[in-house]
């Protein structure tokens, strides 16, 4: 369908914003509920509340990969490359620091870091292909 590629960027932005809003709300809710019932086995279910939002985020990205035109696909690939490289370098470097005594950080920080680097990647690729 011809309208598919032309508006793919707008659709992706909408899906991304909705998923990120849900992620933020469910993250706060999940942590609050889990902390309120520290002895209950339901705390595990509460802690997993934000996961559907993360799955929605991955789905939005996947849809964009399918719907994007060739320049958008290239920009996405370059942005993801920056995100993977940035996250890989940071997590590896901090992992090495942890070995020699830096405070331990949880896996929870990997996704926000990946998203932050993906944001950097989006800015860099937009500047690169801007006329």
């Amino acid at each position, binding site marked *: 369908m011809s309208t598919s590629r032309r508006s793919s960027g707008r659709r992706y932005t909408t899906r991304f914003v909705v998923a990120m809003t849900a992620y933020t709300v469910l993250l706060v809710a999940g942590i609050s509920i889990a902390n309120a019932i520290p002895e209950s086995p339901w705390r595990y279910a509460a802690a997993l509340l934000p996961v559907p939002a993360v799955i929605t985020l991955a789905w939005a990205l996947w849809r964009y990969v399918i719907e994007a035109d*060739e320049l958008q696909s290239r920009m996405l690939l370059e942005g993801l490359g920056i995100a993977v490289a940035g996250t890989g370098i940071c997590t590896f470097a901090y992992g090495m620091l942890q070995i020699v005594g830096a405070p331990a950080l949880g896996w929870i920080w990997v996704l926000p870091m990946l998203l932050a680097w993906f944001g950097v990647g989006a800015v860099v690729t937009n500047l690169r292909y801007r006329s």
Partner: protein
Amino acid sequence: MKNRLKELRARHDLTQAQLAERLDVSRQTVIALEGGKYDPSLPLAFAIARTFECSIEDVFTPDA
């Protein structure tokens, strides 16, 4: 690669949005193509040439 996209688009009295619609790409892609920031794939280059009823060489020329 240099191109005459902007000139040909003006000659055919098309806006960037209209050209994007005909080529089934985003307006962002048309802007990047016109600005010489992005070289299209061969299928897209053929689609551009077909839109302006000319050959690929009439639209695109190598830098050197």
